[in-house]
C-alpha cells in the first residue's frame, strides 16, 4: 500500500512533502511513546500518533521513519512541519482517532512493525 492510498483511506490532509506519496508502506508504528517507536526496526514504516510536538519528527528521523500521520485533527505546528520538510519526512493529519486509524489500516492489510520486538 502506498502513502497516497493511505491518504485517501484516512481522508488525510498533507502538510509536508506531498511529492513523496508514491512511497510504499510495509508496517505501522502506532504509539504516543517515542521510546517505544525508537525500538521499531524494519523498513518503510509509517508512524501514527496522537502526540504533537517536535520530538515526533526527531523520533521519526532517528528511526528512519519516512512518514507520520497525526490523528484526531491534531494539526502539527508550523515549526513541526518545517522540521519535517527539512528532514524529508511526509506529514499528514486526519480527523480519525488513533483506534479508528489503526483499525482501518489493519483492515487494509497493514500490520504492526513492533510485534517482533
Amino acid at each position: 500500500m502506498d502513502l497516497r492510498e493511505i491518504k485517501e483511506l484516512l481522508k488525510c490532509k498533507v502538510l509536508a512533502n506531498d511529492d513523496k506519496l508514491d512511497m510504499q508502506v510495509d508496517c505501522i508504528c502506532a504509539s504516543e511513546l517515542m521510546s517505544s517507536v525508537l525500538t521499531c526496526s524494519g523498513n518503510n514504516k509509517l508512524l501514527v500518533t496522537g502526540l504533537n510536538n517536535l520530538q515526533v519528527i526527531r523520533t521519526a528521523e532517528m528511526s528512519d521513519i519516512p512518514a507520520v500521520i497525526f490523528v484526531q485533527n491534531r494539526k502539527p505546528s508550523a515549526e513541526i512541519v518545517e522540521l519535517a520538510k527539512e528532514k524529508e519526512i511526509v506529514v499528514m493529519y486526519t480527523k480519525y482517532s488513533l483506534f479508528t486509524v489503526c483499525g482501518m489500516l489493519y483492515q487494509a492489510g497493514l500490520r504492526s512493525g513492533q510485534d517482533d520486538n
Partner: protein
Amino acid sequence: MTTEKIRPLVLEYTIVSGDFAGGGKAASDVKRCLSQLGCQSEVIRRVAVATYEAEMNMIIHSFGGKITIYISSDNIRILCEDTGPGIPDIELAMQEGYSTASDKIREMGFGAGMGLPNMKNCSDFFCIDSGEGQGTKVEMVINL
C-alpha cells in the same frame, strides 16, 4: 563500510538541561555525519537512537552535559557525561518501565523507562557509571 575511507573523527556536543526544543539536534548531526561517511543504514540507526535517548535523558534528568562521539575504522564510541543528581540505583534504572520522569515529560512522549534499555539494546558494549549526587557517565560502542 570500507575501512580505508574512515579517518578517526571526534564530534562533540553540549547538551543543555531542559532544552526540549533542541532535543535531537546532536543525534541528528551525528546521523548526518555518518551518512556522509557512507556507514551502513542499520549502524546509523543504532547510533542515532542511542545518541538521541542519551541526549533526551540529559535534557530531562541532568543539569547539562556533553556527548562525545569517536568514529574510527573499527567502531563508533559514544561517551555521555553529565553533571546532575546521578542515579542512586542503576540496576533499578536499567529495568524497562522504571522512570523518575515527571508527568510533564511523560506527556511529551518520554519518561516511559525505556531509554536506558534502548541504549543498551542498540550497543555492542554498554557501560554506565553513576551514583547519587555525582552525575552520570555512559559509554556505548557500536561495532562497524
